[in-house]
């Protein structure tokens, strides 16, 4: 199994600013992903964080709004740019071995935008 930590655990931000969320895995994983959970909703995949190359975004999510880095096999960051109140959500990263493998989740970052 993998243990995943995220920083910060929560934040309150002003409209128009940006926040970078860090995700650290305690072991090398093949795949890392970022998800968003809007209030009262299920989880939606934002993007696949690719090691050493540009992230792969799902429909409805773009790099300018959610730039992602993954410099190595255990670390990734997600930036929420030019925030608005609609970005208030829990952001979760996950990691695992790849297709058909178990995915493990970090504790999430609870973001509130005023």
């Amino acid at each position, binding site marked *: 199994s993998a243990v995943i930590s995220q920083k910060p655990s929560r934040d309150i931000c002003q409209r128009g600013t940006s926040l970078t969320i860090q995700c650290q895995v305690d072991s090398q994983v093949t795949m890392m992903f970022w998800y968003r959970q809007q209030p009262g909703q*299920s989880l939606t995949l934002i993007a*696949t964080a690719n090691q050493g190359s540009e992230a792969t975004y799902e429909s409805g999510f773009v790099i300018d709004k959610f730039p992602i880095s993954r410099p190595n096999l255990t670390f990734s960051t997600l930036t929420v740019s030019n925030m608005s109140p609609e970005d208030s959500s829990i952001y979760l990263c996950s990691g695992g071995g790849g297709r058909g493998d178990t995915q493990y989740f970090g504790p999430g970052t609870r973001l509130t935008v005023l």
Partner: protein
Amino acid sequence: GIQVEQSPPDLILQEGANSTLRCNFSDSVNNLQWFHQNPWGQLINLFYIPSGTKQNGRLSATTVATERYSLLYISSSQTTDSGVYFCALDLRSNTGKLIFGQGTTLQVKP
């Protein structure tokens, strides 16, 4: 795209009761996982179960891949079982990406 439907959407139990949560899906899958999201938002892996039956204490799960459904059984429920239960699927054509159902919100009353 794939449809993932969970039922019931909400469930209230008295402590000690048993329950069954269901997850129906519309396509073949590589991976099916059940998660419990506690009131603090943490997603906890319960089962990795693309097929067959597994048991862990008071919880067990069964996936019948050919009929495209999975069941999560909770026996002798406790107040700490409260939270949201999600099933999540990885399609055969994808690589590790999970599609989540809408969840079942469980409240266990003392």
